[in-house]
């Protein structure tokens, strides 16, 4: 029974991670591409880690919870890197499907 749950979680995780990377190939501009890896992968990696916690709690000596730390660090770092990438893209004025707001809002001073 537990094996089935773990397998399903791993499949879901792999599926979402794949969709996230597929987004990089399918979406049209830099800003929309940012959405794929930052979102689809949080759930993907999340379910992989839940599967890992279940498996090692079941087979190991005690409850395995250090996967929670990985999830926590992922949830803290993924948005920060997405934010910085978006900021850098605005600064470099990369091509965007959406109209980019005026210069003073973006904060370009050159």
């Amino acid at each position, binding site marked *: 029974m537990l094996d089935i749950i773990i397998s399903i979680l791993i499949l879901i995780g792999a599926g979402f991670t794949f*969709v996230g990377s597929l987004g990089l190939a399918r*979406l049209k501009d830099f800003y929309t591409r940012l959405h794929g890896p930052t979102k689809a992968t949080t759930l993907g990696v999340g379910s992989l880690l839940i599967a890992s916690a279940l498996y090692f709690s079941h087979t190991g000596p*005690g409850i395995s*919870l250090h996967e929670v730390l990985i999830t926590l660090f992922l949830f803290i770092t993924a*948005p*920060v890197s997405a934010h910085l990438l*978006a*900021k850098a893209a*605005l600064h470099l004025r990369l091509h965007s499907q*959406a109209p980019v707001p005026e210069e003073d809002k973006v904060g370009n001073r050159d």
Partner: protein
Amino acid sequence: MSRLLPHPLLSLALTGFWLLLVNQFSLGQLVLGLILGWLIPLFTRSFWPEQVRIRHPLTLLRFIAVVLWDILIANLTVARLILGRPAKLSPAFIEVPLALETDLAIGLLANTICLTPGTVSAQLTSDRKTLLVHALNTDDPEGLVATIKRRYEAPLKEVFES
């Protein structure tokens, strides 16, 4: 009290981190974790200028539950959009006027926006009054701004700034 224990919440969090890192619970590890949780904030005091105060813990818990649920929805939404027809997306930059003032609250809001449905925070204006957000697919920018303000900003304001 404040000299010896400058950041009680940070100390508790560090103790929790230590127990998760060693991945086992025993009295010895708990004591070691408490010592680390006490010493680390003491030595890094100059990096934490403001003291974090959580006013309404229940609101914070409800906020975390809402965000976790939204992350789940965000993943499904973004997956559907990617697998659908990317050419039909209508991305937009929207401006969210901020009512928050402290660094921590603004940072948490920007982080939350990045984690939730089809939005990435892109820039905080230099006057710290507006957050520029990129939305993957939106037909109703004003509605999205209203949702962000009601769903995420209001609870953060209540917890950290009231």
